[in-house]
């Protein structure tokens, strides 16, 4: 491009650049700076000193460690299960003709439903109150089991509800993406495979999966990022006091540090946020590297 045109190009880009700069780049840098400023006070704009103290504090805070453990558990459990299940559902959806539209609509419903409303439904399903044990417990008892308090009971029960809920909420988007990915595979590949007598399983693993692998990797990467940023789902089920429930997440911890009952510590919140950022960045880079190696065209 000619040099005389350069300033014009920048001019056209300016609105977007200003927007991104003010709302994305500046806050990012700001958070990074806060995370190294000890005891930063947003009202007086003052701080005691500069150093790693905030990180040290956060990393030694049992609430934070609990949040990291919860977040990692949610990520490790929900991402593979939801992606796998979505793949299974999409393949089944693609192989039926009758009622396909109906099922597609049903699977898509959670996507358009309010998180808190869904949380309420899950409360009814799982919560123990003085009047009822919740629908799920009724079923457990029907089969002769002992009722479990899923909302305020043991850790594994709470984690189960949490993962169940997360998987259910993220499923529609994944099914949507995968059904359209499956539909976009050229039918001629399947015809060619059929003529060569390829078994269904081999067709799936050797043709379908590689063909839609870019979409699967996309879902895994966005799934990881989404699960690491989990917060609102936890609030929907366990309420705002997540630390008390022992079900806090990293984002929840950041929020608590800023605005929670024990809040007012932007420095700690910034340090926690930067730690989350580093974790997500690392995992995304690993994901991208793996997907590059496994996507062949």
């Amino acid at each position, binding site marked *: 491009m000619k040099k005389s045109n350069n300033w014009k190009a920048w001019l056209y880009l300016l609105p977007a650049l200003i927007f991104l700069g003010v709302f994305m780049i500046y806050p990012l840098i700001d958070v990074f700076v806060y995370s190294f400023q000890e005891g930063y006070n947003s009202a007086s704009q003052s701080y005691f000193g500069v150093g790693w103290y905030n990180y040290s504090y956060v990393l030694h805070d049992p609430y934070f460690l609990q949040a990291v453990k919860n977040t990692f558990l949610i990520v490790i459990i929900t991402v593979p299960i939801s992606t796998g299940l979505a793949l299974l559902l999409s393949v089944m959806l693609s192989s039926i003709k009758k009622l396909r539209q109906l099922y597609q609509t049903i699977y898509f419903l959670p996507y358009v439903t309010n998180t808190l409303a869904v949380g309420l439904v899950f409360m009814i399903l799982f919560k123990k109150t003085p009047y009822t044990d919740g629908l799920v417990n009724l079923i457990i008892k029907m089969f002769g089991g002992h009722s479990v308090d899923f909302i305020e009971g043991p850790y594994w029960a709470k984690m189960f509800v949490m993962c169940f809920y997360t998987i259910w909420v993220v499923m529609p988007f994944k099914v949507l993406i995968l059904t359209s990915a499956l539909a976009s595979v*050229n039918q*001629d*590949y399947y*015809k*060619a*495979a*059929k*003529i*060569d*007598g*390829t*078994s269904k399983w*081999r067709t799936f693993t*050797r*043709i379908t999966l*590689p*063909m839609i*692998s870019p979409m699967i990797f996309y879902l895994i990467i966005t799934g990881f990022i989404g699960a690491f940023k989990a917060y609102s789902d936890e609030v929907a089920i366990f309420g705002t006091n997540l630390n008390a429930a022992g079900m806090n997440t990293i984002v929840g911890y950041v929020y608590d540090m800023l605005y929670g009952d024990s809040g007012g510590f932007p420095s700690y919140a910034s340090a926690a946020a930067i730690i989350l950022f580093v974790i997500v960045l690392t995992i995304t880079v690993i994901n991208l590297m793996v997907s590059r190696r496994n996507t*062949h*065209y």
Partner: protein
Amino acid sequence: MKITLDHLTKKFPNRDKTKGDVTAVGDFCFDIPDGKLIGLLGPSGCGKSTTLNLISGLETPTSGRIFFGEDDVTKLPPEHRGIGLVFQNYALYPHLTVRQNILFPLQNLKGKNKLSKEQMNEKALEAAKLVQIDELMDRKPSELSGGQQQRVAIARALVKMPRVLLLDEPLSNLDARLRLQTREELRRIQQKTGITTIFVTHDQEEAMSISDEIVVMKSGIIQQIGKPQDVYDSPANLFVAKFLGTPPIDVFNGTVKGGKLYIGDEAVLPAVGVEDQDVYVGIRPEGFILNDKGAFTCQLQNVEVMGRDTSVVSTHKESLNVTIRSIISAENKVDTASKDVRFDLKPYKVFLFNKETEKRILFGGQLAADVPAEMEESLDTAAGRTDSQSK
């Protein structure tokens, strides 16, 4: 492997439920001799691809039967028919290398047919050598040219040594130059392997140039079957006459009266043995002889000189084509200043068709489908014409 199609019919339900079914292939009866290259030819939507799909087993016929040799394969699923199919877009698996693509059909073999790794590699290499792509084995399809992809697709279809090879519009995705090369290549491969091959095309030139026999189809009905040259020289009806040949046949409204063929007011040819009636007259472009005193007068539009021969473009009020194109030897000089141009007609290049049925009316000793000896010489020039057109 001889293939017999016995009253093969395929109907599709109409999208508009109130109307009847759509017949894609109607009452197809045809023997495909062993080891021949057959071209299914017709305009798009004529049912030629459906016919191919029926033979491959990807579609099941509404009625009728298909035999491979003595075996009735009508109910057999495609994988048990022993066919190789080359798709129009080749359908090469993009994530697999050329080698893996060719190996794919072999890796599906189970039980007693299962091959060892060495046998598979050997067969794949053999197939690749046949289509001359053995140096590209480790490339991905996206790194190949259209012609190379085509060869890989053929190799993949051939590697299982199918009883029948089916090709769906095999050349339509290639550029003009490559098409010419590839069709000769197809012929060579077919003759080398001796596998009965059926290919579908809408390009009459393609079908004529490499087929042992062509099947001309229209709206699911066979119009004519025969050796390409026979079909060209003796079309069974107006559709076939119009469909074959570049440049296309010139068609006129004409009348037979008192044993003479009239176009407009001029008696252009004797038409012995034909009852008086209105007819369509089809004249092949090479059927015109330039003659100042000729019987047939057209209004000259322009003259295109193309080296070996000359194309005279003219008009006539009885012509159904916008312009009449006649091919004459370049040695004849056309007076371009003149308003009119006069021709004599070669009787064996003139076809009469019934106005109602559009079926051929033979006249003056014309024979159906067989080529008279005196026509041999002109046939050569006709064949020469088609070639010079395509180059």
